[in-house]
C-alpha cells in the first residue's frame, strides 16, 4: 500500500516550526516509515506531485504568494493544519496590522533611521510578491482543520498530532503540550 503523503510550507513564519518538526529527533525515522513527504522545504519538492493526507502550514499570510501557496495546499491536502502561532494569529508579523501598509514600507525603505537607500523608492520588482494590507491568519484565507499552537509548537506536540492523524485517531493533547509560546 502506498504511504500517505505529507506536505509542509512556511509562509510568513521564521521556519522555527519546521525546526521543531526536526526536533522530534530519531522519531523522524519512524515518521519516514509512516509517510512520504511531498511539497516541502524538508525535501525541496517545489510543486505538489499528488494528493496529500496532511498539510502543515507554518506562518500566516503576509503577501499574495503566501495566499497562492496556502490555497494550493487546501486544494491538495485532505487535512490542513495551522502549525504555530503565526499561522494561527499572525504572530510577530501581525504587529504591523495596526499600521497602514504605506507607512510600514515608507519607514522600512525610506525614512527608517538605519535605512540606506539612495533611490528613495520602495522596491517594486515584479518578482517581489505584493504585500497584503495586513497579516491574515491562515484560517481567514482557507478552511483549517486543526490548530497546533506554540512558538514553536513543541516537537512532542507535532509528533503526537501527526501519529494520531496517521492512525485515524482524534488529536487529544495533554495539558503540557498545549502552549502558546
Amino acid at each position, binding site marked *: 500500500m502506498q504511504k500517505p503523503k505529507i506536505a509542509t510550507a512556511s509562509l510568513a513564519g521564521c521556519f522555527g516550526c519546521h525546526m521543531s518538526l526536526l526536533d522530534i529527533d530519531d522519531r523522524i525515522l519512524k515518521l519516514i516509515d509512516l509517510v512520504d513527504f511531498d511539497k516541502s522545504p524538508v525535501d525541496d519538492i517545489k510543486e505538489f506531485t499528488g494528493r496529500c493526507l496532511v498539510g502543515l502550514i507554518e506562518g500566516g499570510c503576509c503577501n499574495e*504568494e503566501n*495566499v497562492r501557496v496556502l490555497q494550493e495546499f487546501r486544494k491538495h491536502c485532505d487535512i490542513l493544519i495551522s502549525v504555530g502561532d503565526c499561522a494561527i494569529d499572525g504572530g510577530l508579523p501581525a504587529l504591523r496590522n495596526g499600521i497602514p501598509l504605506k507607512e510600514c514600507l515608507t519607514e522600512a525603505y525610506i525614512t527608517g533611521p538605519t535605512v540606506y537607500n539612495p533611490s528613495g523608492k520602495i522596491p*517594486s520588482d515584479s518578482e517581489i510578491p505584493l*504585500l497584503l*494590507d495586513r497579516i491574515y491568519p491562515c484560517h481567514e484565507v*482557507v478552511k483549517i482543520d486543526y490548530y497546533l499552537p506554540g512558538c514553536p509548537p513543541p516537537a512532542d506536540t507535532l509528533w503526537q498530532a501527526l501519529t494520531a492523524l496517521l492512525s485515524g485517531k482524534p488529536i487529544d493533547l495533554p495539558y503540557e503540550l498545549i502552549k502558546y509560546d
Partner: protein
Amino acid sequence: MTAYNETIVKDICRRFGNERSRMMDVVKEVQTSFGHVPNEAMDAIARALSCPRVEVQSLVSFYAFLTERPKGNIIIRLCDDVIDRMQGFDRIADAFKEELGIGIGETTTDGKITLEATPCIGMCDQAPAALINDVIVTNLTKDAAREIVAGLREHGDPQRLVKRLGDGNNAHELVRAMVVNNVRRKGDVIFGEGKPSDGLKNALAMSPVEVIRAVKTSRLRGRGGAGFPTGIKWEFTRAAKDETRYVICNADEGEPGTFKDRVILTEKADLLFEGMTIAGYAIGAQAGILYLRAEYVYLRPYLEHALAERRKSGLLGNKILGHAGFNYDIRIQMGAGAYICGEETSLISSAEGFRGDPKTRPPFPAQKGYMGHPSAVNNVETLCCVTRILERGAGWYAQMGSNGTSGTKLLSVSGDCKIPGVYEIPFGITLKEFLAMAGAEDAAAVQVGGPSGQMVGPAEFNRIICYDDLATGGAIMVFGPQRDLLWVVSRFMEFFVEESCGYCTPCRVGNVLLRRKIEEVRAGKCDPAAIAYLEDLGQTVKIASRCGLGQTSANPVLTTLKNFRPLYTARMKENEAGMQMTFDISAAVRDAEIIAGRKSANF
C-alpha cells in the same frame, strides 16, 4: 458659549452642593457653559466634588450626549433607527450633509454646527425625525432639511424651526413642540376618565400595607417589559430595613420603537406623579426621582411646572393632603444618551452620578438601591396604572385583560402600517387583531418588544399579547414583505454594539462578533456552518451576559434564526473547495498595487 473659566465650574459645583452624587447635573451644566467638558474642567470638578478625576472622565466618556471635545453650538442628531431608515433617513442625511458640507460625526468649518446620528429618539410614528439641541423636528423631508440648515445659519435658534405645534400639550407654552401624540385608541386605564387626586386620596385613607395589598390584588406587573409584579416589588422595598427609601420612575424610554411613555409624559404627567406619590406613601419613601431620557428634555420645563403646581396644591411636599407624617417630593434627573440606563440598576448608577454600569445583583434595588437605600424602580406606565387602581379599585382593574395578565397595555406601533401611533389595548388580544387595528394586515414580520424582544412572522400572529405569551414593553415594529429582515437584524446588532456598556465580556465582544457574522451572511459569504456559529455565539451572549441588555441583545439573531431561518439559508452556499468566502484577495492587495504601481500577477 464662553471660554473656559474655573470660577464658573466651581459655581456650578457649589449650586449642586458639591455633591459627588450630582455629577451628572454638574457635568451637563459645565457642558452647557463651554460647549464641551474641557480637560481642565474635569480636574476642577474632581477637586470640588472630592473624587478622583478619572471618575469625571469616566462619566463624560460614557454618555453619548456628553463630550470631551468641542462641538458646534448646534448639534443636529439624526435619528437612525430602523424605522427612520425605512422612512428615508438616507435621503435626509444626504440633504443635511450636502447643505452643511460635512459628514456625519463632523462639525462645520466655522465650528457652528455638528451633524451626528443617534439611536431611536422615540418618534418612530413621525419619522424621519431629528433632535436639534433640545428641539425635536419630525416628518423630515429633503426640503425641510434644507430649510432647517438655512434657518440655523440665519438665526441659530433651533426653537424657531418649530413652525407648527403638535396636538394636546405639545402645544403647551412650556413645550412648544411639533411632536404629535397620535393616540389612536384610548383604554380605561391610562387614557380613561378619572378625577384628579382621587387615587391619592384613597391611598392616604388606607395604611401603606393596604395600598400594597391593593396593588397586589390588581395583579399589576411592570410595564417596562420584564413584568415583575409591582406589589411584590413594593413589599420587598418596604420590608427592607432603612430609614430612607426612594421611588424611582424609569422614564428612560430607549428601546427603539417605543414612544408610549413620551405620550404619557406629555398628556398624563399628573397621573404619573400621583402614582409616584402613592408609591412613595406605600413603600415609605421621602423622595421620588423621575429619570428622564435626554432625548425628552423638551418636556422638562413642562414637567417641572407640573411638579411645582402639585407642590402648590399640597400634593407634594410636607404633610401631603394634610396627612401628618407623609412628606414626599419628586425631582427630575436627566439622562445623557445611554440606552443601558433603562436597565434599572444602570439607571440608579447614572442617577448617583456615575457611568451607567449595571450593578451587581443581589443586592436588588429593593434592598439597596439609590445611594444604598431601598428603592422601587417602576416604569412610567406602571405608576400611572397604580393611580387608576387606587382610584377605581383593584377589582375593577384585575377584571380587565387576560387570565394571566390584568389591565391594559400601551403599544407604540410604527413601520409598515397605515395608522402608526399609541394604542391602549386590553391584554389578551392577539397580535393579528392588533395589526388589523393599526392597518398592518399585510405585515411580513413584526418585531414585538423592540430589538431586545422577538421577531415573529405570520405563523405567530395568532399569539396573544400578554406576559405569558408575547410580552412587550410597548414596541411593535411592523415590516412589510418588501423589507430585508437580515438588514433589520444587522441594524439591531449595530444598536446593541453601540449601546453595550462594555462591563461584561459576552455583551461587549459577543455583539461585535454577531454583527460581523450577520454582515458576512448578508454578503453571501458564509456556508451553512454559520448557522451553528450564530446560535452558539448568540446563546453565550444570552446566557452569560451580566444584565438584561446583554441577555436580550442576541434576540434579533436568535429569534430570526428560529422564525425566519430560510432567510439565512437562502444566502448561504456550500463550500467544498475550502476557500474562505470572506477573504477578499483583491481588497487585500489593493494598497500594495497602488504603492507598487502594478497589478497583482497572481490574482
